[in-house]
């Protein structure tokens, strides 16, 4: 296996008696786009700040391109960073902001001008060179911040929730732009976000963090479809969780409420009588019996929300409520609240959470 470009090894960070990052390990390949995804306080920004050099790890080491940078100052690391609050220098024009790192590095004026023009073209704002930050929208400011970060050709690009301060529409377009620029330049990137949609849509891999640890590291497909822990399953995407009791471990049968479901081959290590958390994504459930779906549960429709192209239906099954989406069909009216309903699914889509 090739040497990882960025290697975070057994990193721990404590502030006084509080440990915010615990034994964090991650290898990132050259040119890879990895997202740190997790709720507030999970330690994702602290790990990023340790990679940037703003925080010193209490233990462990950080290696970039084979060089241990753990004790280097931020200005010695050749790392680019985009901040949530843009952090453009208010006293400098757009061109001066983009050229700041180049000027600090002592690049000749003509080369700075050429690189700034190139950056402005990349972020598609060539006419903004002489504007001041306060004359730009939030989206434009963040594009400039991105250009400023990549202008000195850093080895690594760090993005600390760069889209959080923007409105929804700009957020979607800018995240696609960030990904396309990252791919074009082939720059290894770490992206911190608490927005799962953002992480799923643009990452090569995602590290889902909780309580200072990486709960799971994997591709968006793996994270979504094969969550390793209960936290990952709950945090990423919408999930219906049903509590069940193993009735026959050998046969793979589980009782949910008063109904039995067959989960053959999925009950590794469980004994008869064990309580289990079973999870199903809404898109894995159909209303009514459908061909190819080998399991079903009966209940009563408790809520119906008409959302245009999609109808969100909630079905009460004993003490549980299962949410599922069906496509709107002009010829078929939506189901009514209080109707008896059967939901069907493939047992292979059922996740057993540990």
């Amino acid at each position, binding site marked *: 296996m090739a040497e990882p470009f960025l290697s975070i090894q057994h990193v721990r960070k404590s502030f006084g008696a509080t440990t915010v990052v615990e034994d964090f390990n991650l290898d990132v390949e050259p040119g890879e786009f990895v997202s740190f995804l997790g709720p507030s306080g999970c330690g994702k920004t602290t790990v990023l700040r340790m990679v*940037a*050099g*703003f925080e010193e790890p209490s233990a462990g080491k950080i290696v970039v391109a084979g060089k241990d940078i753990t004790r280097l*100052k*931020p*200005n010695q*690391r*050749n*790392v*680019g*960073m985009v*901040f949530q*609050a*843009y*952090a*453009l*220098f*208010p*006293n400098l024009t757009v061109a001066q902001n983009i050229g*700041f*790192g180049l000027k*600090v*590095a002592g690049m000749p004026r003509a080369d700075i001008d050429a690189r700034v023009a190139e950056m402005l073209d990349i972020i598609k704002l060539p006419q903004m060179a002489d504007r*001041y*930050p*306060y004359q*730009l*929208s*939030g*989206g434009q*400011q963040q594009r400039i911040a991105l250009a*400023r*970060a990549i202008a*000195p050709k850093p080895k690594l690009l760090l993005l600390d929730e760069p889209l959080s*301060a*923007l*409105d929804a529409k*700009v957020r979607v377009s800018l995240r696609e732009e960030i990904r396309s620029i990252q791919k074009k330049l082939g720059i290894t990137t770490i992206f911190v976000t608490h927005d799962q949609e953002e992480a799923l849509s643009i990452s090569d891999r995602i590290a889902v963090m909780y309580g200072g640890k990486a709960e799971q590291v994997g591709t968006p497909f793996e994270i979504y479809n094969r969550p390793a822990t209960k936290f990952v399953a709950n945090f990423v995407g919408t999930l219906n969780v049903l509590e069940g009791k193993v009735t026959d471990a050998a046969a793979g049968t589980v009782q949910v409420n008063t109904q039995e479901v067959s989960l053959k081959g999925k009950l590794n290590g469980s004994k008869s009588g064990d309580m289990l958390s079973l999870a199903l994504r809404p898109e894995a459930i159909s209303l009514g019996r459908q061909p190819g779906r080998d399991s079903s549960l009966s209940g009563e429709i408790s809520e119906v929300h008409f959302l245009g192209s999609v109808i969100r239906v909630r079905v009460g099954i004993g003490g549980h409520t299962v949410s599922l989406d069906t496509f709107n069909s002009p010829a078929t009216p939506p189901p009514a609240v209080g109707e008896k309903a059967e939901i069907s699914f493939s047992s292979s889509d059922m996740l057993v959470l540990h």
Partner: protein
Amino acid sequence: MKSGKFWAWVVFALGAAYFFIPLIATVEFSMRMRRGAYSFDAYQIVLGDPRFQATFGYSVLAAVFTIILGVLIVVPAAYWIRLRLPHLRPIVEFITLLPLVIPAIVIVFGYIRMYGSNSPLPFLATDMGTNALLVIGYAMLALPYMYRAVDTGLRTIDVRTLTEAAQILGAGWGTIIGRVILPNVLIAVLSGAFLTFAIVIGEFTMASLLNRPAFGPYLQNVGANRAYEPAALAIIAFAITWGCMSLIQILSRFAPRSANRPN
């Protein structure tokens, strides 16, 4: 509503009268040097007096050095406290307020005892040393104003994020303070500088007890011995102070605007 506006104007007029009537009276008195006619004779005498020019020049120079010293001490200190030592802020604020509580005469006697010609640091043994001590004393007197002005300026920018943004782009501390922080708090620094200027120009106690040829002692001397000239001098001093305040107002329009606004 209209009645409220009327009374607001009455209060404003009373306040303005309280402020302007003594000033107008002083201007009027300063112009009565020539019998039976208004004239600028008192101003001509004051402005033509070589001692006025010498003492005013001395105080202006002292003010410039005081401002430079104040900026060199206060900007890095206030910046570092905001960035790394926010828990020390109340203590530092208290220390910067001390010059308002401790009379200048106490401080200057302390200086004379500490830095006399027989002390290990004999500032007072030479003219240049005494001048330096006066500037240090002035910087201390101006500390409450300079610190507050700079601290208020720093409050308007995101010091930590701007510092980190500059650091990650390769900048060292000198570049960060010189090219990022100082330009963004320049108007606040200038406000502090003009307040310092106004304090130094009129300061009497320190200059007098350290026996320096400053403008403050000259003002006192003229006030004690002449009739119309002190009034003219008071108006000149007012004009200088107001000029400084106007400059603060004008310059604040050119302050870099914060870019951190919602999209």
